[in-house]
């Protein structure tokens, strides 16, 4: 128990006194995951919309496919992407392996199903009359879609937050295609993996604390949104 307290104390010191290496790692996590979410959201939500209003035969199968990917193990995605990006692989010439871009791509693959599945659910809850009212008042299709998104914005935000939670805490992809390079592709989760493999628990715990606080904040925010959603309905 003493060892644990001492380690936690060291961890807090590292965090509070702005250990540069530590904060580089934290910022890298955010940078990569934010990019992944920002790049994925527009396309995923448009697809979710299309699946909702498309009425084409394959839509149910596509939706089932994305639902099945919701809990795919991250190492599987990482391995799959590694094979594609390795020099000898089909996309080897792009030289993406062991770069942040590879991590972003992997995380995009990871959060896309989440955003589609949860976005679909949110959009489905939209009143049919939103579409009709917007159209009759002269809105072109693209603006009608935005109007619908605005009406279900809390559900969409919940989808985005869930997707973000999924990617900020993954390690399988970052480790495999990022390579855990210090200052370049080392993020919170791969750093924790490294530090614990070295037996350096203080750093690992410090980073773990950052991740836990973030998870807590996200969850609290999500509940706040859901309560607001209750009010407006």
């Amino acid at each position, binding site marked *: 128990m003493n060892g644990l307290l001492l380690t936690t104390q060291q961890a807090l010191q590292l965090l509070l006194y702005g250990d540069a290496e530590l904060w580089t790692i934290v910022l890298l996590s955010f940078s990569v995951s934010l990019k992944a979410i920002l790049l994925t959201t527009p396309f995923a939500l448009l697809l979710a919309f299309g699946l909702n209003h498309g009425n084409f035969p394959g839509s149910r199968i596509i939706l089932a496919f994305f639902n099945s990917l919701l809990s795919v193990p991250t190492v599987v995605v990482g391995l799959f992407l590694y094979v594609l990006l390795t020099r000898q692989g089909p996309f080897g010439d792009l030289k993406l392996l062991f770069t942040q871009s590879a991590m972003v791509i992997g995380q995009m693959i990871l959060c896309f199903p989440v955003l589609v599945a949860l976005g679909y659910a949110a959009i489905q809850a939209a*009143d049919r*009359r*939103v579409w*009709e*009212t*917007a*159209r*009759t*008042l*002269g*809105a*072109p299709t693209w*603006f009608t879609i935005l*109007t619908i998104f*605005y*009406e279900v914005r809390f559900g969409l935000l919940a989808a985005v937050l869930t997707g973000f939670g999924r990617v900020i805490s993954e390690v399988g992809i970052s480790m495999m295609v990022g390579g855990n390079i210090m200052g370049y592709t080392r993020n919170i989760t791969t750093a924790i993996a490294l530090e614990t493999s070295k037996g350096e628990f203080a750093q690992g715990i410090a980073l773990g604390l950052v991740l836990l606080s973030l998870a807590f904040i996200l969850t609290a925010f999500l509940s706040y949104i859901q309560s607001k959603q209750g009010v*407006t309905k």
Partner: protein
Amino acid sequence: MTEPLFVFHGIEKSYAEVEILRKVDLSLYPAKCILLTGKNGSGKTTLLKILAGLEKPEKAEIELSGKSRCWKKAMPTIRKEIIYLHQQAFLFSGTVESNVSYGLRFTTLTRKQRRESLKKALEWSGLTELAKQQANTLSGGVQQRVAFTRAWILKPKVLLLDEPVSNMDQESREQACLLMQQMKSAGMSIVITSHVPQYFGGLADVQFDLANGRLLQ
């Protein structure tokens, strides 16, 4: 006799093998009000939505500048002139202002003109004090006024009102009828559906009954 704004021929619509509308003809004249009655489920809403371009008929023709054209080709051009209002006033989440001004962004008015338009419209229906109020906090009657104003501000040629005064107390009903009278006086062609035709005695110029998919006077 003035020229009709739009003439619809031979509207046919079926849902799951059931014929809802059989060869319905309707002409819409400016500054005239049509009252449409019929049982629940007789297809009144469907007819209005087809007129507004929100639902696709099996077959229909529209007369434009003397020539008859199929619905598919003609609808896109006339849709902008026709606005449909739902049975229970449906407002977007936001304020009275944001709702009323929703359609303005698709017009060619300048920012200044839009503000002017908004101000005048709110005055027209007496909503100026409520401008910043959240739409979902309003009573049913006031919400209906907001919906009217939202359509009025765009100066459409045709207004299709689906059961505009159902579930309203007498005072709200009278206010609503006043606004509808003003819209008619401004030259708009109005179609109202209702299963209580007595309310619209002074407003309606002609009454049709929709039964078995056919329109009868």
